[in-house]
């Protein structure tokens, strides 16, 4: 077989190790010394706002850009100076990058033909990929005659037919409508599991990150803000940025004075930092000794209702049950459990661990 790298036994052969990777464009670092490991068969999402360097990171891993410093290793092999083709990867582009003049079948088979895979095996692999993705009846069509979702599938087909152990995806769902996006999320995830591919997936959509990934690498300004499982990032955000980026609606970040009112008496008077609390952790009741706020706006979503509250000029959002009835202008008391509070340093925005039972005021500027 000519494509000696193509067959993965899905062992540890496809671990991706990114070490101190740096890319500088005209003296401005786009990727600034990032390191992370994506274990074989794992689904890692590179998440971040636009311009955070996540796409550049993916392109560095693919070999489409050369790093200024640092290394990329795939399957224990340093591939930093290797061409994209030598890295044993497949890639799905945001635009799908389908060849407009070739039929679906030819698009999927492009790489196999280039690599001189024998015809019989090519046909066999095409058949398998087409069945997996439900493309069998579309094989003779040109990309222009396909819907967005079908084009997406062809791009996926091109990636899986290569039998590469590593698959890189650059915002593959951003051109699809919401309904389709949800379907494809599940489909890509199950495909990745079934084929045992090591996947690195770039997105700015935190829902995709939360729902699809084994691990999330959250990036900001070319650096890694936090990495871990989706639950780790959601439950213990490492910074105010991470806290606001994951979760819809985002975590409430409140000035100390306002946040302290959520758990009356538990927090000493403090000056530094902000207090974060997830909207679903807020409890509403009659106005009491704690924080009082007026209901400024109500968004009824069916299963739950989002209330925008105004506490003396500070906005916070609470998620309540769909059947709970409130009126705009109503005054309510807002509270939460002490354990649901997150503390962030004022200067750096980094997480500050609460002492003891988690409800004392953290040391000023402590371990940030």
């Amino acid at each position, binding site marked *: 077989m000519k494509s000696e790298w193509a067959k993965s036994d899905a062992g540890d052969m496809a671990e991706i190790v990114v070490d101190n990777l740096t890319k500088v464009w005209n003296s401005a670092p786009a990727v600034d010394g990032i390191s992370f490991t994506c274990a074989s068969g794992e689904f890692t999402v590179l998440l971040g706002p636009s311009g955070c360097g996540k796409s550049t990171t993916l392109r560095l891993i693919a070999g489409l850009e050369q790093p200024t410093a640092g290394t990329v290793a795939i399957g224990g092999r340093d591939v930093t100076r290797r061409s994209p083709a030598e890295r044993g990867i497949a890639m799905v*582009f945001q635009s799908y990058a389908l060849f407009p003049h070739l039929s679906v079948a030819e698009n999927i088979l492009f790489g196999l033909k280039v690599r001189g895979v024998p015809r019989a095996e090519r046909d066999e692999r095409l058949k398998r990929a087409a069945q997996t993705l439900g493309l069998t009846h579309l094989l003779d069509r040109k990309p222009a005659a396909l819907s967005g979702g079908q084009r997406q599938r062809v791009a996926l087909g091109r990636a899986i037919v290569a039998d590469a152990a590593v698959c890189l995806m650059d915002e593959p769902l951003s051109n699809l409508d919401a309904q389709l996006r949800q379907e494809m999320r599940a489909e890509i995830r199950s495909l990745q599991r079934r084929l045992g591919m090591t996947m690195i997936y770039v997105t700015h959509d935190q829902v995709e990150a939360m729902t699809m990934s084994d691990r999330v690498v959250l990036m900001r300004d070319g650096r890694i803000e936090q990495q871990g499982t989706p639950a780790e990032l959601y439950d213990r955000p490492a910074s105010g940025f991470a806290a606001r980026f994951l979760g819809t609606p985002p975590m409430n970040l409140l000035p100390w004075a306002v946040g302290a009112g959520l758990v009356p008496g538990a927090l000493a008077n403090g000056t530094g930092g902000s207090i974060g609390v997830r909207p679903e952790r807020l409890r509403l009741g009659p106005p009491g000794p704690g924080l009082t706020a007026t209901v400024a706006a109500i968004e009824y979503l069916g299963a739950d209702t989002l209330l925008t509250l105004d506490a003396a000029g500070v906005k916070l959002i609470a998620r309540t049950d769909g059947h709970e009835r409130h009126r705009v202008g109503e005054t309510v008391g807002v509270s939460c459990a002490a354990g649901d509070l997150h503390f962030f340093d004022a200067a750096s925005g980094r997480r500050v661990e609460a002492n003891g039972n988690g409800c004392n005021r953290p040391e000023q500027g402590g371990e940030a």
Partner: protein
Amino acid sequence: MSRLRTSIHASLLLLPAVVLLAAFTHVPAVRTFIGALYTTPRGKRPAVFVGLDNYRQLLDDPVFWQAMANNVWYAALTIPLSVVLALVMALAVDARLPGRAALRMAYFTPTVLPMIAVANIWLFFYTPGYGLLDQVLGLFGLPETNWLGSRDSALYAVIAVAVWKEAGFFMIFYLAALQTIPHDLREAAAIEGASRFTFFRRVTLPLLMPTTLFVLVNAVIGAFRLVDHIVVMTRGGPDNATALLLYYIYEIGFRFWDSAYAATLTTVLLAILAVLAAVQFLFLERRIHYR
């Protein structure tokens, strides 16, 4: 009522363009076809209907056949040479290299120059003895050549001028087309392990086919239409070695004032162009992917 007014308005608005087109394009074309069936009116002798006599004369005219042969040879060389050169130049200046704007301008300059000026420049290049070409060749000890004065080289000399003039023009179309090819196609192919040549053959070239058809049609028309440099450089000589069809028509029509025979030749030229255009569309159209 108002519909009538609308259509009157519309007709009036169309009228100037229709009049100009008809007066200077359609009526002369039709009169050419008709004129080819009559003799040339001279003095008090009016034109007489002679049917296909003019065409019979044409078949027996050695200069016509010489001009046809010249033109076929001229087209057969200028078209592929200028199109391939245009593609190569476009690929060169499409690449990321320093000073590519200057290079693009250099390639395009011949197109901007009037053909008369180009012909005069090349006239100097070809001048025996002290012309640029002979001076350069002289450095290698090669003898003087009368490029435009020799039957063997004159046609090639004017072909070179036409290629030089046309290639830059076609390059612009190729360059524009190349820039519409998304960059991620190249990256997708690179990940699949396609070499640059494979990418060019399997992706770039097919995606350039609509442009190629357009350029080819233009090149074919150009090969039969562009004779300015013949007028300046050789006047069809020596011994009709560079007489192209259109130049021959010009000579017959406006130097010998044989308008009937000129009309006959023109009809033949139009027929050739029509057939060539039809062939190109029918054969190439099927193989072209339009986005």
